[in-house]
């Protein structure tokens, strides 16, 4: 018996019998893979602890575990420890043991006018979110850490649009998208608009229109969809039109 014969006979076999055969003879890749399974394991463990039927709630995950030793071992191990915790059987460690948290960024001093570009971009994104997608503001800092860490590893914070698009890979969430758009738009203004020009726009009441146009272009060039770029640009421009001195502080005088 091999996997081809088994799959050819699938219609003749009860589902449970097919599942057993699949676990015994089918070594080929399946549509529901290891990464998806592992990502679901915490939810599965939680359901098991509550006595819920995981085969009904998570059939794909359960059936992947039935036939994948690697994922199943990880699951059994997580479940074993969770059950031990539930029955109060985890050992008590030395109460004097404490972690070394020096790998975390040092706590911030009072805000100053000389904030860096990433700090400004993050602060502006926080300010824009109530008008865009308020629900994601709680996770923005988490994504910002990864985003700026990636940029820092690129040796420069000045990036070409192509590179910005590459950096966007993986940010298929709103928190990352707005942060990314704010960075792209701000970088565009900082690189191409002088302080004198900015002041001239403000004096002639053209600042909001100019900024919106540049922000929309910058966001689209960075790979953000036109509709999303338009929403972002409108909010971004309105913010800076109301607070022109904040961006002005970043701009070159030449």
């Amino acid at each position: 018996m091999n996997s081809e014969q088994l799959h050819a006979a699938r219609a003749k076999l009860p589902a449970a019998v097919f599942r057993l055969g699949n676990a015994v003879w089918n070594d080929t890749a399946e549509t529901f893979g290891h990464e998806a399974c592992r990502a679901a394991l915490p939810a599965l463990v939680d359901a098991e602890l509550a006595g819920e039927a995981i085969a009904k709630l998570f059939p794909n995950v359960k059936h992947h575990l039935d036939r994948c030793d690697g994922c199943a071992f990880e699951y059994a191990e997580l479940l074993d420890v969770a059950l031990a915790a539930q029955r109060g059987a985890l050992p008590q460690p030395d109460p004097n043991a404490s972690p070394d948290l020096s790998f975390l960024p040092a706590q911030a001093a009072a805000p100053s006018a000389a904030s860096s570009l990433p700090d400004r971009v993050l602060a502006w994104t926080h300010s824009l979110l109530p008008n865009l997608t308020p629900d994601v503001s709680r996770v923005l800092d988490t994504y910002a850490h990864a985003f700026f860490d990636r940029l820092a590893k690129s040796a420069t914070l000045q990036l070409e649009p192509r590179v910005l698009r590459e950096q966007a890979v993986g940010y298929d969430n709103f928190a990352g998208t707005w942060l990314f758009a704010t960075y792209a738009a701000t970088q565009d203004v900082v690189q191409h608009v002088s302080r004198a020009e900015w002041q001239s726009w403000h004096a002639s009441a053209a600042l909001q229109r100019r900024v919106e146009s540049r922000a929309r272009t910058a966001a689209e060039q960075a790979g953000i969809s036109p509709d999303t770029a338009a929403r972002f640009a409108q909010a971004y421009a309105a913010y800076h039109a109301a607070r022109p001195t904040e961006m002005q502080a970043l701009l070159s005088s030449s």
Partner: protein
Amino acid sequence: MENWKTIVENELNKHGWELAEPRAEFLERVAQSVSANGDPRTASELTLQRATVRCYCETLFEAGGAQRSAAQQRAFKELWDYLLPRALYRLHDGQMARDATQHALIKIWEKLATCSAPAGFLGWCDQILLNVVRDEFRARFEKRVTERGIEYVERNQDTYQMNGELTRDEASPPQPERKEPASDLLSDALRGPMRDALVAALHTCLENERLVQVVLDVFLEDKNYAEIARQMDTSPLNVQVMKSRALKKLRECSVLAQLYEDWSA
């Protein structure tokens, strides 16, 4: 205080969790989390406890990313308190457990943005800890896995001894008390000749009633691993080991293969 709020507070206090502030907002989130199933006042204690943990996971995840803040420091301290006993359970060595937990915290920090389900953040962190333990303390971890399996048997032996019921048959390994033979637990679709043929083939290939039982429970009854472990008086890890061993034997057994070929014809 209303009873449901007391349950939430007790769950937070049990773990020493201090970041659920402002409290009214956190309680509102817990209430909304259970409100799809009804008023939080009518939710069961277990439902409220689970909702509290889920909501606190989100709080912890957010605080973990709140750079340069006291909340971030507190979040990682609470992660240490949560993970260290688990590392100690897995390694049974204080220094190794502290080292593993420290390494896990750094990896959690590095990978924080990749957590796709903040409501399961603590489970995600435990997965990272498990990977650190397996990668960096493999020999010690594997020895502990074996020890934990034996502890299950010994714990049951102690129970039987206390009740004065220890017999040679019960001592190793303890046999579960089942109301029906394993082969009678198959679903209706598998009754009759197909059932009999499958059970016979499994017995021929596996030569071990417990391995037959695991195969039937996992694949044909689709049971939870925790449930199987409870019924067999063993650990989920041992259930997985038995399942893996059974599949290996079945792959090498021509009797089962012939049976499937006959069914497929």
